[in-house]
């Protein structure tokens, strides 16, 4: 196939354009050959198109695989909010996901055990550190988020709290201590 490609181009371009048709072009065999070669070119074009579309689809699929960040942000009243942000669309998935458990003057640091789907969030502020465990994301609900992302989120950057339920705060540990930094 690879060796035929330049021949195909030469024959098709030379035969009609030359004005003087060579012998091979006049006989039936030549015409059939030309037809076959034309078909090869025709299908080659579609094959190339198919490959290009496939590559684009693979790239699109890769770009739209879930890529979540669990983030901690602080607002102007010094409350802390833990949220999930889509790392490739920037959309906030769970605004104020633990809104009832906001903290003033927070220090926050997080780590994830992705084999167990747990995010640990160490939250502390003067004289009160908390160790919270953000719980397992349920598969069905997480799929819903992906679906929402592609179909609904373009003009809807924020979800309501009712929609944002695919992550659970299953437990938290609170302790009292004095910060030395």
């Amino acid at each position, binding site marked *: 196939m690879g060796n035929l490609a330049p021949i195909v181009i030469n024959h098709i371009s030379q035969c009609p354009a030359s004005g003087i048709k060579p012998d091979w072009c006049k006989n039936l065999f030549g015409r059939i050959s030309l037809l076959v070669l034309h078909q090869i070119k025709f299908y080659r074009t579609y094959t190339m198109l198919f490959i290009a579309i496939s590559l684009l689809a693979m790239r699109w699929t890769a770009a739209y695989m879930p890529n979540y960040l669990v983030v901690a942000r602080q607002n102007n009243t010094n409350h802390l909010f833990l949220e999930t942000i889509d790392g490739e669309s920037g959309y906030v998935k769970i605004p104020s996901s633990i809104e009832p458990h906001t903290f003033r003057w927070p220090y926050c640091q997080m780590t994830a055990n992705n084999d167990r789907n747990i995010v640990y969030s160490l939250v502390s502020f003067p004289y009160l550190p908390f160790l919270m465990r953000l719980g397992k994301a349920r598969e069905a609900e997480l*799929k819903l988020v992906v679906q929402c992302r592609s179909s609904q989120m373009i003009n809807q950057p924020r979800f309501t709290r009712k929609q944002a339920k695919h992550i659970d705060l299953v437990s938290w*540990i609170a302790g009292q201590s004095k910060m030395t930094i």
Partner: protein
Amino acid sequence: MDSWTVEDDDLTIFDLQASSNKDTIFGIKVTGKYQRTLSNIILEDENLITVTELYDLPEYWYVNASSYNAKEDIYYALLNNFPGLSNSTLEQQILVVNFTNCVPGLSEPKPTASLMSIKSKLGQLQFITWDPEIKVLFGAGINLQTNIAYLVIIDPYTGETSDSLVNIANVTEVGPLVSHSNHEMTGIPLNLFVKKVENHWDLHFFQYNTNAKTVNVNILTWSYVGPEYKYFVAAVRAFDEY
């Protein structure tokens, strides 16, 4: 939601890193005014956190940022010198601690550790993140004279840093840096938060090209503006199997 209180007035811990292999947590315990100790932290039950001290950091140094190689159980800590003392310095160190042989809850065997001075050409680093697939430690910092944020690669065993892979102008603070090598296609995705002005943060999405060893700059940037966005203080990648 369950909740409980730990009755330990002396417990102060920072910079936790979860180990999937050992199903435990490693982190820093404050063991003195200027002393920090890398420890194993176990959430035993509703009322108990067990802390096992494993490795003392050099005195007068604290962990400014940390990251974890969950595949090989290696803890990376960016160390800063305590400020405000007569001999305080702006130097930084990179601590690499291997917990492979450690057993949760036991003080022996001890982890192995290496400590190197960071030889940064650009200034102090603020955040680090380890990428497990390409085994690269990235760091982000800011030059406060030029207000340019930068991204570098740190060799954790020599302390050498690369030239800046990315420069972001008009930045006043650098926020969390996270890598996401779960779906490498054209490069390793990186997310970096930067603060532009008060109540305006940008989240940048870069891709690190592992072949060219360069970063595709500003592939996407999202802005978070308003009184709800004073700081992005922490970020972690989560739930990668979906």
